[in-house]
């Protein structure tokens, strides 16, 4: 076992896959000599060489496109987006080329596009986005968002081994803030399965990413008030774990859907519809969403604080729902 940060866990995961499978290669801006803007790929150029750790020009579309080309030739490219906000520059390649290729003519596109996303670091509108829903809405892709160091390593491995294009959302706020004992041996966290992080009985809080920690904080506080929260970590957004979501919703009868992403068109809407559709008779109260408002992510600290959900806001929503 090793005590690793979330970031280190990702690095270990990529490193192990690079060792295990010579067809894995990395592409991205500043990932080689510099080791990546966040140092996720530090040491890899030295270890694996220029052919497998490729520093590219600034051209997200070309990077993703080239990854697709390499994948068609039998490689397993892992592309880094320096910030997931910049993934928009490669949007066409992702949604029109990668996502639809297998459906249209058959070959696999085993690429991973990974990068830091999320707010809470005073990054402003272009270094803080949670834009996962652009891709959750695109059939043919897979989208994952680990919340723990253990899952980050297990899921990056799963993503690299998956034959489909996987968009891998790392949360930059968690990079160095969480540490966990990580097993040294090979393990994989399956894509498409969520997990109950904390068992509870009164309200099921379903969430992902950094908000999982927010939910756990709120749960600890509310327990003192006699309110028992169950916290579900989705881990994967496409495909997502319907069974786990519904089981918790049914068990508690009251649900709060929590995410840092903006409200309209967010994952909460999708889950609310699912729960209303399939667990209607188990609901003892309205399905509640706690999300960011529908704005770009603002920069100044008071603005960002207002924008982001936090444990206090979640707790308030939980108390209100509990009283219903």
């Amino acid at each position, binding site marked *: 076992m090793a005590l690793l940060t979330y970031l280190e866990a990702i690095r270990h995961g990529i490193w192990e896959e690079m060792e295990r499978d010579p067809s894995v290669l990395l592409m991205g801006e500043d990932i080689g000599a510099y080791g990546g803007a966040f140092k996720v790929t530090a040491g890899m150029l030295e270890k694996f060489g220029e052919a497998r750790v490729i520093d590219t020009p600034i051209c997200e579309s070309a990077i993703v496109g080239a990854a697709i080309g390499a994948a068609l030739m039998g490689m397993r490219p892992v592309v880094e987006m320096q910030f997931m906000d910049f993934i928009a520059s490669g949007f066409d390649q992702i949604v029109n080329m990668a996502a639809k290729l297998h459906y249209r003519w058959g070959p696999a596109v085993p690429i991973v596009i990974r990068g830091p996303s999320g707010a809470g670091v005073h990054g402003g509108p272009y270094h803080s986005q949670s834009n996962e829903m652009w891709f959750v809405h695109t059939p043919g892709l897979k989208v994952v968002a680990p919340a723990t160091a253990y899952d980050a390593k297990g899921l990056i491995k799963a993503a690299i081994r998956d034959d489909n294009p996987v968009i891998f959302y790392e949360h930059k706020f968690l990079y160095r803030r969480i540490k966990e004992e990580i097993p040294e041996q090979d393990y994989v966290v399956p894509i498409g399965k969520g997990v109950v992080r904390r068992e509870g009985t009164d309200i099921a809080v379903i969430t992902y990413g950094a908000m999982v920690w927010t939910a756990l904080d709120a749960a600890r506080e509310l327990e003192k008030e006699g309110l028992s929260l169950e916290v579900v970590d989705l881990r994967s957004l496409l495909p997502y774990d319907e069974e786990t979501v519904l089981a918790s919703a049914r068990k508690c*009868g009251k649900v709060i859907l929590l995410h840092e992403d903006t409200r309209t068109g967010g994952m909460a809407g999708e889950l609310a519809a699912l729960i209303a*559709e*399939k667990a209607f*008779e*188990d*609901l*003892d*109260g309205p399905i509640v969403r706690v999300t960011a408002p529908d704005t770009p992510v603002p920069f100044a600290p008071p603005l960002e604080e207002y924008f982001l959900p936090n444990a206090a806001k979640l707790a308030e929503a939980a108390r209100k729902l509990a009283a*219903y």
Partner: protein
Amino acid sequence: MATNVIMPQMGESIAEGTITKWMKKVGERIDRDEPLFEISTDKVDAEIPSPAGGVLTQILVKENETVAVNTVVAVIDGEGAALAAPAASAVAAPKPDVAPSAALPTPSPAAVSSALPAGAPSVQIPEGGEEEIRTSPLVRRIAREHNVDLIQVKGTGLGGRVSKKDILDFIEQRGATPAAAPPPAVSAAPTAPPAVTFTGAAQSVPMTPMRRQIAEHMVTSLRTSAHVYTVVEVEMTRVVAARERFKDEFERRNGIKLTYTAFFVRACVEAIKEFPIINSSVEGTNIIYKRDVNIGLAVALENGLIVPVIKRADEKNFLGIARAVQDFADRARSKRLSVDDVQGGTFTITNPGSFGGLFGLPIINQPQVAILGVGAIEKRPVVRDDAIAIRHMVYLSVSYDHRVIDGAVAEKFMAKIKTILENWDEAVL
């Protein structure tokens, strides 16, 4: 074998085309791929080659006629455009980006298919609850599973809502407690009105449409009729006894509950027959006597009320009345009353006693001229043969319109009802 010749789609947004020229006449031979006709569309003019070789047997669309894409314009070697697709070459629906179905050819014009593809996930519609009580799907399900009448459950949730805890507590405590006097008539007991959240000293909440209607009706009625009230006290001993003796068998035999309401309705019907003025309305300076006795029963709803009407109650026997009462009770609760159900009443009975009131002074239900209020049936000490006796008693009040009903008439009407009830002998079963 016949082949349909269709108007092709020259361009993704094109919906129709005009035949500008036929190169062949009916009866002439044509080879496959030989030019057969010319068309003109918004985008382009084109010569159209024949899809098959054979004899042109039918021209269905003339020169200069415009038809929708995929319309059959001619037939080769056969009869009737009604035939199905030409062999082998199946034609897909005209707007592939709108109509998902590309499987079967359709000889009909550009019909946009709205059918879901077969693999589409099915829509799940959960069964709705029936209660008017304020609660949740989960609680309704628990109530169903445990045969709990939610009217009896005290709600401690927001606004008096029956929460999961409430019903689970209720089920736990429920046991040997026998039911009290059965809930009278058809009133579905409303819960407390929704709590108001104050953001200031006063909070403005707009009226619901039902509330607006009731408000309007009530003040109009007071302005219209000359309201006078009288109250009588009725001994219900015989009625109670009849009910007690027969209620189980009644229910078993007829599948409906034996309620006090049926007794009151029957009594009113008989009394109205003797005093037809009660069954009238006023139009200007005319009194309109109504032939049919249509008894309305006021049903309390959450935040309002509704009055379903037993039509031609004078033609029904006791069982018929009881059935109508039960039916209205069920349908009022589940909000399945129709417009017809609440129209045409000539007399109304209301039940201030259902919440324990001794008697009430109701407002006449326009355009009627009288309304009966039934108080709570209670055991009270009364004087019988100069001694104190404990009897089931009820106060009946009538509000009547003194424009057309005088006090003497009203009091005799009430005396008649009293007599019927106190001497009840009609067969119940």
